[in-house]
């Protein structure tokens, strides 16, 4: 069983929902990413989603675009993200880590080389925004070879027959994009999300995590009533950026990020499931 499947099973046994924070590798600095990963786990994160910096992050809103630009300016690339996971694994063998990013850095490294390097580093899964099931055969073959999961997105615009197609290619969990838009968008509608999740569950037994538009404990708690996991990206990236802009030192940055995750953790856990 993969580390991700195991984690969801464990949470389900406890009647809890997964909290999945997102950060970009190398933001706000190269040396702070690994401490940040540990701090988020300490604050209550169940699974970590590490963004791979890319020059053209087409699905990101302004907050995460800027994080990609900062990370690139700091010199962070796919190889560095892998190094960070390797370093993280020295102290944490249990928390699943998935890489989220865009096709080209992975394509450039080569799918086989990527799969080998990522699994050796301790990465559990890959989520590429711009590789839909129609284009995924090659990369999926390599990920399966090394026992990594491939996390797919399902969107509000995905019709039922595509849900089935995506479910047939996915493993680990499925990520439901709660809004039509880019990361950090607003207007989250819990009833609408619930409706979509129910439809997706007709096609898969995989856990369903929800992201895009979850910004605080209240919105996370609302989504946790219907989903198996909650992804928090822009709000966390913004929190760290604000702290940096206010001149916080490294321990201050970690504390501020940890506070947000702990707050959201309490919100989710207070929700009757």
């Amino acid at each position, binding site marked *: 069983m993969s580390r991700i499947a195991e984690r969801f099973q464990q949470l389900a046994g406890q009647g809890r929902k997964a909290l999945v924070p997102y950060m970009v590798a190398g933001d706000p600095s190269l040396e702070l990413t690994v401490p940040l990963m540990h701090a988020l786990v300490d604050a209550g994160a169940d699974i970590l989603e590490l963004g791979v910096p890319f020059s053209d992050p*087409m699905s990101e809103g302004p907050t995460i675009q800027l994080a990609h630009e900062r990370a690139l300016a700091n010199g962070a690339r796919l190889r560095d993200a892998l190094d960070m996971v390797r370093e993280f694994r020295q102290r944490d063998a249990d928390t699943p880590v998935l890489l989220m990013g865009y096709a080209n850095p992975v394509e*450039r490294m080569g799918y086989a080389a990527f799969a080998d390097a990522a699994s050796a580093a301790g990465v559990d899964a890959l989520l590429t925004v711009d590789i839909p099931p129609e284009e995924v055969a090659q990369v999926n073959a390599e990920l399966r070879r090394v026992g990594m999961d491939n996390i797919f997105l399902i969107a509000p615009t995905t019709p039922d027959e595509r849900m089935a197609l995506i479910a047939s290619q996915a493993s680990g969990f499925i990520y439901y994009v709660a809004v039509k838009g880019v990361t950090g968008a607003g207007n989250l509608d819990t009833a609408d999300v619930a409706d979509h999740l129910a439809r997706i569950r007709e096609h898969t037994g995989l856990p369903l995590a929800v992201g895009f538009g979850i910004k605080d404990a209240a919105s996370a708690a609302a989504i946790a009533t219907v989903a198996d996991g909650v992804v928090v990206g822009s709000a966390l990236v913004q929190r760290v950026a604000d702290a940096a802009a206010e001149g916080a030192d490294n321990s201050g940055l970690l504390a501020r990020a940890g506070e947000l995750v702990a707050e959201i953790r309490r919100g989710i856990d207070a929700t009757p499931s």
Partner: protein
Amino acid sequence: MTSEIDFGTVPDAEGRFGAYGGKFVAETLMSALAELESLYRKLSADPAFQRELDEDLRHYVGRPSPLYEARRWSDEIGGARIHLKREDLNHTGAHKVNNTIGQALLAKHMGKTRVIAETGAGQHGVATATIAARLGLECHVFMGEEDVRRQALNVYRMKLLGAEVIPVTSGSKTLKDAMNEAMRDWVTHVDDTFYIIGTVAGPHPYPELVRDFQCVIGREAREQCLAQIGCLPDALVACVGGGSNAIGLFHPFLKDEGVAMYGVEAGGRGVDTHEHAAPLTAGSPGVLHGNRTYLMQDDNGQIMHTHSISAGLDYPGVGPEHAWLKDIGRVNYVVATDDEALAAFHTLTRVEGIMPALESSHALAYAAKLAAGMRPDQHIVVNLSGRGDKDIHTVAEIDGIQF
């Protein structure tokens, strides 16, 4: 080798041109692309749609565009005869309108009320704003901040036409970033918005449908060559940024084995300097903006900054069909530098009284070299894809002139 290839069968059902093309986009857009594809299949086989399009091309765009023999320029060079396909004479001043008319009709048939576009030089933005004005559609044009500065005249034209021009400040602030921002807008407003992509790139079916709309250039040129010269040309030359004017000229000639083809990329300050926009000449395959194609990228798969004197060629990718045509060897991809393009701009202006766009000037620069090595009984068709009025500020700035 290429005689065995059926050029009519690409792309395949998945939108692939050999190893290139495809649909590399976020899940939110996949249904919209499927809807577009099925509507396009239906309408492209519908004689009424074709009639509507042909009428517009004739009476609104002013087609057919002339094929003009540049006699004085050809005489000066002393080699092959050079014929200019005058896309600069189209309404709005470039080939871009052939495609925007077609896509706007698709938008109308889909019931979309809002269109968006990316633009580099501003020609595609102007062509989109023009059609949007005519059809009463809300129009938003994304344009890199750097290009807004370089192409102030076109920005004002778009505003006069009722479009909102949104300066893009992310990344390198040029065409690729404008395309990123247009994709972000599309994903956010996918229900009521049609994305009018300006070139033969992007996710399937865009490379195919933009090609189909631009093929009017090559179909006309082929007939005009037979009627005016009495034979097919020996060579075709067109500039390649995304590559829509080039594919439009080349595609109807692909089966004509005796016709050599040259796609001219932006050599910028030289392909050995990294300051260029020549992915086919000096790039490598990768995935960007919905398709697999040749890209200007580094060893880590990050997209590199590009440079060209012409905003319309300042793009790190290229249409996937060009990537395929390069690999199978049917089209030769070459470069012209900023300086060569600028020299060709001045030459054509003075010798023929035709002021070409800086994009098209790249094709002219290469054509002059090519012609010089050919015989006077041979013929070259150059796609004069746009007029140069929009570039007067750029050229004046280089000459140290302030208005």
